[in-house]
C-alpha cells in the first residue's frame, strides 16, 4: 500500500513530513548515489548525515588508516579503530547507523588513473580530501564528467564551502586557477584545526548534496560560503564562471587530468581561505 516499508516510514518520517521532501523526495534520496572522497574530518559528518538521510548508495574513498590524532574531528572512527583502514571503520559506522544504505568502499588514493572510474556511477561527489593536489584533480574530473561537486576546506577556526555545478556555475579553478605553491598554506598538522569546524562544514556539504538530489532550494553554486568560527560569522562571496577558466572556460587549456606534485609539503586539509591567488571574487 505504501511505497516504503514500515521501518522506512518511521525512520524517515521527519523527512516525509517536510513539504520539500515527502515520499517523492525520500524516494529520490533512496535512488541517489553519492561519493564521499575522504573519510576524514569533512567526510565523517558528511557521510554520517547522508547515511542517516537514506541515500541509497554511499561510496567512500580513502586509502589511509586511522591515527589517534584523527579522532579529535574524524567522528566516523573510534579509539579501537586506530591502525585500521578508514574505509572499514566508515563502513561499520555508517551501516550501524542505517543498515538500509549500501556503503561501497574504495581503499584507494584518488589519482588521475582512477578518478574517472570512481566518479562515473555517482550522481553527486562530496570533496573531503586533505590536499590541494587531489582537490584540483577532483574539480577537473568532475568538470570533465559533468558531475556536481560539493567542495569544502577547513583550517584552524575557518571553513569554506562551494558547490560546483559544471556548466551552470563556476568551478574551483574559476575562483582559484592554480594550487598554491607547496608550503604556502600550512596543513592542519602544522597549523591545527578545531575539530567541530569539520562538523559544521561537513554537515553543510551533506545538506548541499541533499538539496542537489531533491532539486530544492538554492545551492551554494556561484557563492563561496566562508565561516569564521572564532568570530561566529558566516560570510559569502559571489563568484562567476570565468570564460578564461583553464578547465571549464571557453577555450580550456587543461584537457587531461593533472596530478600536481606538491612534494612533502602537502597540506593535510585544504585551506579554509583557499589558495593565496584569488580570482574574480566580487
Amino acid at each position, binding site marked *: 500500500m*505504501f511505497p516504503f516499508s514500515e521501518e522506512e*516510514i518511521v525512520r524517515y*518520517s521527519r523527512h516525509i*513530513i517536510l513539504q520539500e521532501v515527502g*515520499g*517523492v523526495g525520500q524516494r529520490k534520496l533512496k535512488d541517489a548515489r553519492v561519493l564521499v572522497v575522504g573519510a576524514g574530518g569533512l567526510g565523517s559528518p558528511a557521510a554520517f548525515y547522508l547515511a542517516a538521510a537514506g541515500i541509497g548508495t554511499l561510496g567512500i574513498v580513502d586509502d589511509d588508516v586511522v591515527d589517534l590524532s584523527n579522532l579529535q574531528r574524524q567522528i566516523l572512527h573510534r579509539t579501537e579503530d586506530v591502525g585500521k583502514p578508514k574505509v572499514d571503520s566508515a563502513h561499520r559506522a555508517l551501516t550501524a547507523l542505517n543498515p538500509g544504505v549500501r556503503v561501497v568502499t574504495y581503499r584507494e588514493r584518488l589519482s588521475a588513473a582512477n578518478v574517472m572510474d570512481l566518479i562515473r556511477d555517482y550522481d553527486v561527489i562530496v570533496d573531503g580530501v586533505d590536499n590541494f593536489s587531489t582537490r584540483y584533480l577532483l574539480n577537473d574530473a568532475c568538470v570533465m564528467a559533468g558531475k556536481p561537486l560539493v567542495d569544502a576546506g577547513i583550517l584552524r577556526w575557518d571553513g569554506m564551502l562551494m558547490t560546483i555545478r559544471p556548466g551552470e556555475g563556476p568551478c574551483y579553478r574559476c575562483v582559484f586557477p592554480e594550487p598554491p605553491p607547496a608550503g604556502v598554506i600550512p596543513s592542519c598538522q602544522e597549523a591545527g584545526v578545531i575539530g567541530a569546524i569539520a562538523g559544521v562544514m561537513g554537515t553543510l556539504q551533506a545538506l548541499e548534496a541533499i538539496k542537489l538530489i531533491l532539486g530544492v532550494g538554492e545551492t551554494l553554486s556561484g557563492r563561496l560560503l566562508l565561516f569564521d568560527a572564532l568570530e561566529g560569522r558566516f560570510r559569502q562571496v559571489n563568484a562567476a564562471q570565468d570564460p578564461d577558466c583553464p578547465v571549464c572556460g571557453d577555450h580550456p587549456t587543461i584537457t587531461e587530468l593533472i596530478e600536481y606534485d606538491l612534494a612533502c609539503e602537502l597540506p593535510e586539509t585544504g585551506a579554509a581561505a583557499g589558495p593565496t591567488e584569488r580570482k574574480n571574487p566580487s
Partner: protein
Amino acid sequence: MPEDVQVHRELDLKGEVCPYTFVKSKLVLEMMEPGQVLRVIVDYPPATSNVPRSMESEGHKVLAVGAAGEGAWEILVRKKD
C-alpha cells in the same frame, strides 16, 4: 460525509498515532491524481485536528472531518491541483 463527494481512495489508519497518521496519509495522497479525494479513518483524537492542519499547510483542501462510527473519525481531503 458530504453526499456529493466522490471518494477515490480510502485509508484506514485506526491504531496509528501522530505523526504517522499524517505521514501515511501524505504518502497515499502523493500517489493519487490532482483533484482526487482521499478518505482517511482515524481513531486517535488528536489526528482529527493535526492531519487536517498539515494537509491544509501543504495546500490540499480538507472537505470534511466527522464521526465515522464508534470512536473513529473520517477526514476527507482533496488533493491540490
